[in-house]
């Protein structure tokens, strides 16, 4: 009788202790995650311009965003373009650089540092720099291409080149993937390479049948986190569009979103555009929920237990 009692008391004490340790996050979760998420759903069915009270409006915002809002489909298309092309380029290039760094024997520390540095560059600063470097008229990149006789694109001022230019900027900052791939590549058992070599495998076959299977969970991790990142593209396309259009003011000036020709518009930008420039909070919440649905779909993929991407237990 008394042992059950003490056991139960012990359980209760350990439950309280767990609760105490988790409490900062539990409060944060409720106030800064659950509550605003539910509110976003609620606001998406109301008309609200920031004054007075929100009034219930049924599906008006939803049909407006999907049916009439001229920027929604271009923004969705751009976002998906970035998700596919940017992630593919970053993963392939990151893996290439990661493999290169494992083969470098002299000055590996210097090389690794140089490859990693761009990842640290603040996005606004990096974007400003790239818009200047890729400036068709006076930028050094097009000057060099011109000297080499290569026809140079107009980058951030040409709708068909603005997204590739953003991709180039993202590939430049591939240092994080390089580090992750490097760690994974160094973990591949050397014996497997030796065995493959004894069997007469070519370098490509060694990559295909030894390297890839060993690092595939990390490739998958890089793809899924990359997709989530690309879906959130906000600062770089916005700053690039503002600077390239020559309309940089933070206050007052009217700015054509997605310059040039809506080509750099992304879903997160629409939330800002609808909510904080047009004060149509309800429609902004609809776009926010589209973004939410997309990111949760990919997060679910990331957490699939047997995928082994993020193990929940020990």
């Amino acid at each position: 009788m008394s042992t059950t009692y003490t056991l139960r008391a012990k359980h209760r004490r350990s439950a309280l202790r767990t609760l105490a340790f988790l409490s900062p996050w539990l409060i944060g979760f409720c106030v800064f995650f659950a509550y605003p998420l539910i509110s976003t759903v609620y606001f998406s069915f109301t008309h609200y311009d920031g004054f007075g009270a929100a009034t219930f409006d049924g599906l008006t915002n939803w049909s407006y965003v999907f049916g009439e809002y001229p920027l929604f489909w271009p923004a969705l298309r751009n976002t998906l373009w970035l998700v596919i092309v940017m992630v593919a380029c970053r993963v392939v290039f990151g893996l290439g650089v990661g493999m290169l760094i494992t083969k470098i024997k002299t000055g590996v520390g210097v090389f690794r540092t140089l490859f990693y540095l761009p990842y640290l560059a603040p996005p606004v600063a990096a974007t400003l720099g790239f818009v200047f470097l890729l400036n068709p008229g006076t930028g050094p990149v097009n000057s060099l291409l011109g000297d080499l006789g290569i026809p140079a694109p107009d980058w951030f001022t040409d709708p068909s080149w603005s997204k590739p230019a953003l991709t180039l900027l993202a590939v430049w900052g591939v240092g994080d993937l390089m580090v992750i791939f490097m760690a994974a590549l160094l973990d591949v058992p050397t014996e497997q390479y030796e065995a493959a070599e004894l069997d007469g495998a070519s370098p490509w076959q060694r990559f295909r049948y030894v390297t890839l299977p060993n690092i595939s969970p990390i490739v998958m991790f890089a793809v899924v986190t990359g997709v989530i990142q690309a879906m959130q593209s906000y600062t770089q396309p916005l700053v690039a569009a503002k600077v390239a259009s020559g309309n940089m003011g933070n206050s007052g000036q009217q700015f054509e979103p997605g310059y040039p020709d809506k080509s750099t518009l992304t879903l997160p930008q629409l939330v800002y555009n609808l909510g904080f420039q047009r004060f149509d909070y309800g429609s902004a919440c609809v776009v926010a929920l589209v973004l939410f649905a997309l990111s949760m779909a990919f997060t679910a993929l990331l957490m699939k237990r047997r995928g082994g991407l993020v193990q929940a237990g020990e």
Partner: protein
Amino acid sequence: MTYAFDHAAAPTATPAGRTARRKALLRWIAVHSLGVAAALFFVLPFVFLLLTSLMDGRQTLTRDLIPHHWAWSNYRAVFETPGFLTWWKNTLLYAGLGTVLSVVSSVPVAYALAKFRFRGRNLSLMLVISMMMLPPQVIIIPMYLFWAKQLDLSGTLWPLIIPLAFGDAFTIFLLRQFLLTIPNEYLDAARVDGCGELRTLIKVVLPMARPGIAAVALFQFFYAWNDYFGPQIYASDTPASWTLSYGLESFKGAHHTDWNLTMAATVLVMAPVILVFFFAQKAFVEGVTLTGVKG
């Protein structure tokens, strides 16, 4: 560190040995030329920015890459731009205070998620990961209305700093990954000696977790340093509350044609990040590795 691709040829004097040695040398040259090419791709943009920041205003509109005369005064001009020093102060407040708050509040949460067994632990971890993956734009409308209309704090950076006192999902996740690598035997030993959980955490775990804490602190600091969206939402109408990342973009607006001054300001915003990196390389690499590799 060992390298999986290290198959250096045996240095023997036989003809076969000589061919193998020549092959190894050729491979060394190929790999390192490729390395230099990649290094140029990563470094040249920095070099161009630096050079442009030292040109006079007119030269930025020409195709010459080397400054005609080195205009170091550009940097003084940037510092004398009204607001620039205020942006530094604001950025340090947001990044510094935010980092301290998020680390202090996230450590116990990460510890519980890594080392306690309790019902709902996996669910909690999944929710942390969901929070981490949530684009900030998804919840920004209610959050803005909450801070601006109910607490009247728009125009300041407090809406960005205060939530960090309640744990940050990314910090919690990374710290948990790190704490998993600390063997349970140390904790059990402390408990046998009669330490409570809090004392075990402070006396035993924290000293061992120092590299992990350094990594998450750096990540949090640079997240705030680089943040553009947050200051744009809450502080855009109040230039006295702008941060460097946000102010930098408007700087280009104020100095319409002055690419040299803009690039000097850009260099100044990048410089602290890169400087800190050189002192804390290990912590950075540790942090990046934690996101991907250790389960």
